[in-house]
């Protein structure tokens, strides 16, 4: 749980999650391209890779090797602990 909060605290990591929400199974290259071209975030490839490691440790990103390629996908299930702990109020009509 603490890992999830730490992972979400960084704005670049939140953008990575936004982009993975758009499409599953992205390579490191695709993620770097999206951050740079769509969000003007010019972090180094190594820095993005380290952000992905943090997200993976928190369970928010799952990596998968398919043949020679490594893909990343979003897993939102760790976020369930947040609404279980602080349930959402029902929406007003």
């Amino acid at each position, binding site marked *: 749980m603490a890992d999830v909060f730490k992972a979400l605290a960084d704005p670049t990591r939140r953008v990575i999650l936004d982009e993975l929400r758009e*499409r599953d199974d*992205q*390579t*490191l*290259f*695709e993620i770097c*391209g*999206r951050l740079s*071209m*769509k969000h003007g975030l010019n972090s180094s*490839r190594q820095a993005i890779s380290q952000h992905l490691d943090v997200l993976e440790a928190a369970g928010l990103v799952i990596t998968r090797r398919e043949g*020679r*390629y*490594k*893909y990343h996908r979003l897993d939102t299930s760790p976020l369930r602990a947040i609404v279980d702990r602080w349930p959402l109020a029902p929406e007003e009509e």
Partner: protein
Amino acid sequence: MKITVTSVFVDDQAKAERFYTDILGFTVKDDIPMGEHRWLTLVSPEEPAGVELLLEPSAHPAVPPFKEALVTDGIPFTSFAVDDVQAEFERLTGLGVVFTQEPVDMGPVVTAVFDDTCGNLIQIAARKA
């Protein structure tokens, strides 16, 4: 000074020649025997006098691990221009080509990345009007 030749390292020149001509649609410009390998260059039929692509053997021991590391992270070795990335993605997928990145709008360009079956990823890109 002008750029006349650029190269891509291929695992197997004969296989690469087939993929780059039959699937991608380039034409052979020079094919000259050079010891155990060939000086094998291609041009685009859209630009027969344009820059040549040399299909260079991956024979040096440093090359395979270098290529493998790029492929793992999805990094293309080089990039080719197309008019319509989505149309080319559909055409190539229909021919069995594997894409590691489907067409994505990257601001001024649309790009996609495919496997050339010779150990490289190649990007295709189209500038938006």
